[in-house]
């Protein structure tokens, strides 16, 4: 059983994902429309699956968006652990995992940007 098959069988839609690997193991991080169902299926199939809190930033679909946001985060001392994104015309979404979630939320909102909540994805 592989991850993609598990998602298909449980009728879960993967909205965005990234794969990291290092020294013999791989980690796949997924943004899905039905996280609970996905988790249940993966665990049933023998995967080690966990939930992680991430931020979803609403982005303009034009060049420079990533740079502008990361500059703001940098200036406020926010460390990005990983990130991945996808285009959702006419906008785009950036998924961020940060060390200090509360500070990141404050910073991003203060910069005039919008954070997307789960209802946006389900």
């Amino acid at each position, binding site marked *: 059983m592989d991850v993609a098959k598990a998602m298909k069988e449980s009728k879960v839609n993967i909205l965005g994902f990234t794969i*990291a*690997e*290092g*020294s*013999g*193991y791989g*980690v796949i991080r997924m943004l899905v429309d039905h996280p609970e169902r996905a988790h249940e299926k993966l665990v049933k199939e*023998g995967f*080690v699956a*966990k939930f992680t809190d991430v931020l979803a930033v609403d982005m303009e679909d034009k060049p420079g968006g990533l740079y502008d946001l990361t500059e703001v985060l940098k200036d406020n001392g926010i460390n990005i652990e990983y990130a991945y994104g996808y285009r959702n015309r006419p906008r785009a979404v950036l998924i961020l995992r940060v060390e200090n979630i509360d500070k990141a939320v404050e910073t991003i909102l203060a910069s005039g940007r919008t954070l997307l909540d789960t209802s946006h994805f389900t």
Partner: protein
Amino acid sequence: MGCWNPEIELMPKKDLEALQLKLFRSLVKSAYDHSRMYRDRMVAAGVEPDDLRSIDDIQKMPFMSKKDLRDGYPDKFFIAPRRDIIRFHASSGTTGKPTVVGYTRNDIENWSESLARSIVSAGLDENDVVQVANTYGLFTGGLGFHYAAERIGAAVVPASTGGTERQIELIKDLGVTAYAATPSYMVHLAEVAERMGVSIKNDTKLRIGLLGAEPWSEKMRDRIYDWTGVKGINCYGASELSGPLFSECGEQNGIHFWRDITYLEIIDPKTNEPVGPGERGEMVLTMLKKEAFPMIRYRIGDLSVADEEKCNCGRTHPRLRRITGRVDDMLIVRGINVFPSQVEYSLMANPEVGNEFQIVVERKGALDTMHVKVELKPEAFTDNIIELNAIRERIAFKLRNLLNVGATVELVEPGTLPRFEGKAKRVMDRREY
């Protein structure tokens, strides 16, 4: 080939057996008088020192095993007064503690004397230059060969392990004629030399290899000789016995066990009775002259065959054939003893480690590799690769420290290693010799 101690080495067998009996009786009396532990054992077995009239009465004596050394850690079974102990050595234990052994001055003397006889029988003398590439330090290999080579007046190059390229330069430049190492390291040396453009056969004076501490085959011996011109001499020993103690003579046809040093028995491990001549069985060793602590009927765990026929070299001391296996699950990795129970002990001390692990031992090229696969507990699995690597390194560091072997560790998901009904098969040994 010379003879270091012709009086003993060529003594008729029946005179040697009389000598053995004398030494044995005195040994047992000493153990009985000075070791509470040993006396209790003898009492439990219903034996008293006066019951021992002939050498066959040795079979009345109780056995000893590694467990005794472990239970007596570090020196509860020593019988010599503490001030008479002039050396400690330590080697692999079966759990978290090493096996500790001690020596009086006579113990060191007898150890060097035994090995000196052996290396002279193999063809060495005071003109030789002996490079000792066994580990110096707590292990007995380095200092064992060092003392023996020095005793016969050879020049010793105390290289210890590692630094292969520099070792090759020393072999060339110092005119080294004999090399003490593991057989796999000898092959590794030849490989590295070739990469350096050095032919051991044509560019060096190396002619004799004192090789032991791990299993090796006749095929490997021939390969070493054909490639390097080095005559491989099989050596045997263990820290519990002293250290490296015995070797083959120049005939390369079995390792001579000096009768005045050790009484060698081969028993059937199922019945504990002696096997017939030429039959394979478990080795039981009695160190006849040891003072620091008694080693009487020690079941060392090796399986082999003893040959009582007189050797072509004229020596009247039995020859041990190549070790063919172990009674337990002990491994030898690069000449170092490793017990799976040690690995388990080390791994389980890490909170993230689950219940399953697997040891994979291979020989890619000349040298052994040891790779340990460990299942983490599900809770410990994190998506942070950096953290996972740090956990893995911590586990590996602890393991390497305990084993003194450069093992690598791999973290695997819970549920991926094979499960067993009954005893778990922890070791995949893919080596061939």
